[in-house]
C-alpha cells in the first residue's frame, strides 16, 4: 500500500473520479473561484514533459490555479461532460480521444449531446424518478438548471434510457410488480397517485372531458412523452407530473375532478 504522500494529485483525481487504467489524466485544471475541477482523460501514451501541479496549490498569486493549457485535440474534437462532484468542487471530464460507442458507455464519459457523464446521469435520473423537483435536484447535485433541462428534454423525448427502481413503486411499476394499489383520495379530492386511474388516463384507455386549458396542454404533452417511453421509471415520472398538476390546481378543476372521482369509484368497484 502506498503511503498517502506518495499519491500524486493526478492519481487522486483519477481515484476520486472512478477512472481506472488504461485511461489516464493528461491535463487538469482547478479553478478555485468557480470551484470546478477539469480533467482531460486519454488513452494516448504518456507525454514525458507533462507537468503535474498541486491540487489547491497554496502558492497562488491569484485565486485561479494556473494549470497547463490542454493539448490540442489528438484524435478528434474535444468532448466534455459534467461528472460527479469532487467534494465541494464540480468536476468536468474532457477528452479529445476519438470515442466509439462502447467508450461513450463508460461511467466517466457520457452520451453525445447530453451534459452529464453516465454516472452523474444515473444519479440525476434517480432523483427525478423519486419525484424530486428540478430545483431540488440542482441544489443537491450542484448542477446548473440549464444542464438539467437539457438532460430532462432528452429523457422526455425518449432519446436516452436509464434503469432505476424507485424506493416506493407506484402506478405502472406497481402493476408490473403485481402490487394492487389501494385507491384513495387526498383532502383536495384528488385520487391518490397510486390509483391505476392515472395510467389508464394517460394511455387513453379511459377518457374524460377536459375544459381547462392548462390541463389540456399538459395532458397532451404527457401523453406524447408517455407513448415514446419504454422505461417504466420514466413513465412513473410522467404519472407523477400529471398527478402533481391536478393536485396543485385542484380548485380550478372542479368539473374535471368530479369526473375523475367518478371514474376512480367506477374502476375500483
Amino acid at each position: 500500500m502506498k503511503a498517502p504522500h506518495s499519491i500524486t494529485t493526478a492519481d487522486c483525481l483519477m481515484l476520486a473520479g472512478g477512472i481506472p487504467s488504461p485511461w489516464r489524466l493528461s491535463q487538469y485544471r482547478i479553478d478555485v473561484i468557480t470551484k470546478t475541477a477539469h480533467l482531460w482523460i486519454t488513452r494516448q501514451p504518456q507525454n514525458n514533459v507533462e507537468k503535474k501541479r498541486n491540487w489547491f496549490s497554496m502558492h497562488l498569486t491569484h485565486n485561479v490555479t494556473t494549470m497547463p493549457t490542454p493539448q490540442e485535440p489528438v484524435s478528434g474534437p474535444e468532448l466534455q461532460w459534467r461528472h460527479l462532484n469532487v467534494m465541494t468542487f464540480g468536476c468536468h471530464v474532457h477528452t479529445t480521444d476519438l470515442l466509439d460507442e462502447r467508450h461513450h458507455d463508460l461511467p466517466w464519459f457520457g452520451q453525445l449531446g447530453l451534459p452529464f457523464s453516465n454516472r452523474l446521469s444515473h444519479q440525476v435520473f434517480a432523483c427525478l424518478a423519486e419525484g424530486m423537483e428540478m430545483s431540488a435536484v440542482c441544489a443537491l447535485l450542484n448542477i446548473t438548471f440549464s444542464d438539467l433541462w437539457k438532460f430532462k428534454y432528452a429523457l422526455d423525448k425518449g432519446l436516452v434510457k436509464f434503469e432505476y427502481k424507485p424506493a416506493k413503486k407506484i402506478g405502472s411499476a406497481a402493476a408490473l410488480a403485481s402490487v394492487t394499489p389501494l385507491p384513495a383520495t387526498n383532502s383536495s379530492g384528488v385520487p391518490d397517485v397510486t390509483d391505476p386511474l392515472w395510467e389508464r388516463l394517460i394511455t387513453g384507455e379511459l377518457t374524460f372531458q377536459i375544459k381547462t386549458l392548462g390541463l389540456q396542454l399538459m395532458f397532451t404533452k404527457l401523453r406524447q412523452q408517455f407513448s415514446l417511453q419504454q422505461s417504466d421509471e420514466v413513465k412513473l415520472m410522467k404519472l407523477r407530473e400529471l398527478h402533481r398538476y391536478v393536485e396543485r390546481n385542484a380548485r380550478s378543476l372542479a368539473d374535471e375532478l368530479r369526473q375523475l372521482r367518478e371514474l376512480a369509484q367506477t374502476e375500483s368497484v
Partner: protein
Amino acid sequence: MSAMQQLLVTPKIAADLIRRGATLSIAGDEDVLAALPNGNWIGGTIPYFMGPEGGITTRDKVLVTPLSLYPDVQPTIKVYDCASLSQICVQAPDNGYSVIILPAFSEVHFEYAQHAPMYDDMFMRPLVGWVSGIHLDDMGHRTPKVRDGRQGVMLENQAVVIHVPLPDNVSANVAIVNLFRQGNGDEITFLECGFEASTCLVNGTPTSLVKYLQSSRHDNRLPLVADCSGALINVSLKTLDQAQDKVAFYGPVFPDVVYKLAQPFDGNYETLFDQAIARLPEPAGFSCNCVLNYLYSELEGKRTGTVIGPMTFGEVAYVLMNQTMVQLTLETH
C-alpha cells in the same frame, strides 16, 4: 371575479400611473414606450389595438394593464435571454401568474415558440403574454422590441416577464377563444419542429406542403389546427415559396401532432367572437388577440364584444398561439 381592467390611454396618463407606483404591462408604439418614465412595468411594441370603440391602429396611445391589485404581494420583473428562458415557470410564484412579452422574429421568440412546452413546470402555473411587433409600414425599418420599465433600454432579443403573486384565496385562470375549427379533411403531420416545412405527411404519405395547399385551393388565411385534448391550437400560414418548395409559419409545427386545415367561418369574425366570449365565465383582466385576426377579419373600427387588448404578432397562453384570443381572469375562492 377579475378586478383588472385594461385601458387604452394617452402616454401622459400612462406616465402618471407609472409615477404613482402602479405595476403595469404596457403595449404601444416604440417611440412612445421609449419615452415613458422608469418604473415598475414591462412593455412591448405594437400599434394595433382592440379598444373600447373598436379596432384601432395608433401610435399615439398605449394599452395599459394594471397588475398590482393586492398591496400585500409584490410582483417581480425579470428579463430572460435564450439561455435562461427555460426557468420562467420555475421562477413563477407558487400562487399567482406571469405575463411575458417577447420581441417578434428574435432568437428568444423562436426559442420560446419551439421549446416552451418542454420547460419545467410549464402549464403548472398560469402564464400569459404576447409577441411584440411593429406597424406594417415600418417593416424593414424597425424591429419589434420590449422594455423592462425599470431600465430605459429597449430590448430586441430578450423577453420581459412580470411574475405576479396572488393572495391565497385568489387564483388565476387562463383561457383562449379560437374561432377556428378543424376541417373534415386530411390529417397532416410533420417530422420535425420548425417555423417552416417542405415535406409533410398527408394521411401518412410524404407530400410537398406547398403543392398540397395549392392543389386543395386552400385559403391561406385559414390556419392549421391541432386538437390538444380539446384545446384547438392554430399554426398560421405565413408564406408559400413555390421556388424553394417551402411553407413558412407564424408559429412552429411540432412532430407527433396531428393537424388539419381549418374550415372557413360560417359568419363574420366579430359576430362569432361575441357569441364565443359570451360563454366565458368572467370578463378578462388581461387579454390580447392576433393581428392576423385584425387584418384578415378587417376589425379596424369594429368591436369584439367588451374585450380590449393589443392585437399582437403572437399570443401566449402557456405556449405560443396564432390567430387566437388569450385571456386571464382572477377568481376569488
